[in-house]
């Protein structure tokens, strides 16, 4: 394993060729490591405690999602999308359903559109709340912040379970709508949760905003210029934390987002502190969207009655559809050859592309900052490696 033998497909040697100097220390961070970002490895070269070089090693969770999807029907891939970014399955469902609908030209009924917005924004709440817990864990506050975060996450998961039957792997959206209608009283439960979420955010912000350790660990850490971020294809909260106004819900509206009144929070410097705070501001905006969507929720079918489940064959062609996932631009590129299976199925994962600039963010900083920066990128390895 240590030597880079030519026959090995794990051609990532423990000791990379890099700056060849006896005074440098080479550390392999991962794939098993104490932070909660999955099996991601970084080969770091340190001068004292300063990072001189950092090479990411991917592929420890490469489970062949795209290849498997090319061998099964369109609908069979829906449960696999749940397992892409496993903290927010429902937005993945939406992105995939959106791509197939674009390919096949399906219409989505009003009620299903609202339902999708509600579920996607609840998922955003889950993701950003868990993010806040995880990044504090990376800074050494393992436990307390995550405990609060997961307390709230469980409340949302209970709602998901009522609606879809599963806590995490919902497999809920269908081409042309959603799988089933709301159970009785579900919408009222969601609006109660939305009302209670504001006070929770206040509590969490009180814990974080003025915290001296958090400020010392995150301010001025890991910022990059707007140009670098845009050129690197970075999207989502990471890009907006640097002050670039780019949110797909606004620039390329999908679903019914243009009907809602919400703002896009922007950061100033793009350091780790901004990245944490922007997520809190986004959660407040999500709550606004949820309130509006729940108030306007119309009656009607949740799935287009003409949508076919069996023998579904979209016409020959290709489509790319993207949504603003909680982590950034989540896109699906599908090529159809007119059969029941996609000819090509390609995912544009936000975590993976956001991670590509990790070396630029870490150079010249301490090793301890690397973990915080990795946390602030907010990756999920299911999506990075697919």
């Amino acid at each position: 394993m240590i030597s880079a033998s030519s026959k090995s497909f794990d051609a990532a040697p423990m000791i990379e060729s890099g700056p060849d100097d006896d005074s440098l220390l080479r550390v392999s961070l991962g794939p098993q490591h104490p932070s909660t970002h999955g099996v991601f490895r970084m080969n770091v070269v340190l001068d004292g405690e300063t990072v001189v070089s950092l090479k990411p090693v991917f592929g420890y969770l490469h489970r062949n999602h795209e290849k498997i999807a090319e061998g099964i029907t369109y609908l069979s891939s829906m449960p696999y999308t749940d397992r892409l970014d496993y903290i927010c399955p429902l937005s993945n469902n939406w992105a995939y359903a959106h791509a197939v609908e674009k390919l096949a030209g399906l219409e989505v009924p009003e009620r299903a559109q609202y339902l999708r917005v509600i579920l996607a924004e609840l998922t955003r709440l889950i993701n950003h709340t868990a993010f806040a817990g995880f990044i504090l864990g990376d800074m050494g506050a393992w436990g307390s912040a995550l405990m609060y975060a997961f307390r709230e996450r469980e409340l949302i998961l209970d709602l998901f379970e009522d609606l879809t039957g599963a806590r995490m792997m919902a497999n809920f959206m269908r081409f042309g709508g959603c799988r089933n209608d709301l159970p009785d009283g579900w919408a009222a439960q969601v609006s109660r949760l939305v009302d209670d979420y504001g006070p929770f955010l206040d509590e969490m912000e009180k814990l974080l905003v003025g915290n001296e350790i958090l400020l010392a660990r995150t301010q001025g850490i890991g910022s990059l210029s707007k140009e670098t971020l845009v050129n690197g294809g970075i999207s989502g909260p990471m890009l907006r934390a640097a002050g670039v106004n780019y949110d797909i819900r606004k620039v390329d509206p999908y679903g019914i987002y243009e009907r809602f009144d919400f703002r896009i929070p922007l950061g100033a410097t793009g350091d780790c502190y901004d990245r944490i705070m922007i997520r809190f501001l986004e959660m407040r905006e999500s709550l606004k969207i949820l309130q509006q969507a729940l108030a306007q929720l119309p009656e009607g079918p949740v799935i287009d009655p003409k949508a076919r489940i069996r023998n579904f064959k979209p016409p020959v062609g290709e489509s790319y559809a993207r949504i603003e996932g909680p982590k950034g631009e989540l896109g699906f590129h599908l090529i159809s050859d007119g059969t029941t299976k996609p000819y090509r199925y390609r995912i544009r994962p936000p975590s993976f592309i956001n991670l590509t600039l990790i070396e630029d963010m870490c150079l010249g900083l301490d090793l301890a900052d690397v973990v915080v920066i990795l946390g602030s990128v907010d990756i999920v390895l299911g999506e990075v490696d697919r």
Partner: protein
Amino acid sequence: MEIDSMLEDDMKSQGVHVTSFEQLINWGRSSSLWPLQFGLACCAIEMIAATMAKYDMARFGAEVFRPSPRQADLMIVAGTVTKKMAPQVVRLYNQMAEPKYVIAMGACAISGGPFKEGYNVLKGIDRFIPVDVVIPGCPPRPEALLDGLLTLRAQIAKEKLMGSHRARHADPLGTAAFPVPECGAHDLEPTSNREIWHPLPVLREVEGVEA
């Protein structure tokens, strides 16, 4: 060795608790399992959820997640093991100190689960390390993980430390480390450890051929 229950009750009434070393040691081991803090995929999120506010694994003495395998005695294989990851999982298992136990959490760790047909997915971690408890589900609910933990505790409580049926870790000739597979040109080499993995024979009925 069983203790005479009459004697035990009699002594208990006098405020004396009689037990055997075996029971005492097993009680201690089963009551403070320290899991390795090591998540692979989706199941890891449910594993974290099991330790958090609502499910609170601390009730069963297993909340002390250790980042280092040297300090851990329970490995929860939570998620898909890929062929690139399998050597690291086996190495982590080898680094753990005895006595050590393995829970295979979720369909992927048991058999490859929904990703079984993937070219890079290991079809069950039991091909390389001995698994004590399997928890089906994709992902299993936190309650299922707690149930698996309780099952493991019951198994530990019944362990024999002496005699011919003693536990693997109590056997001086038993092995604590298993060969780490290497990543070969097409697959792991070897593809499984036949000393611990005994798959059921595949029986196929072929026309004209007697089984």
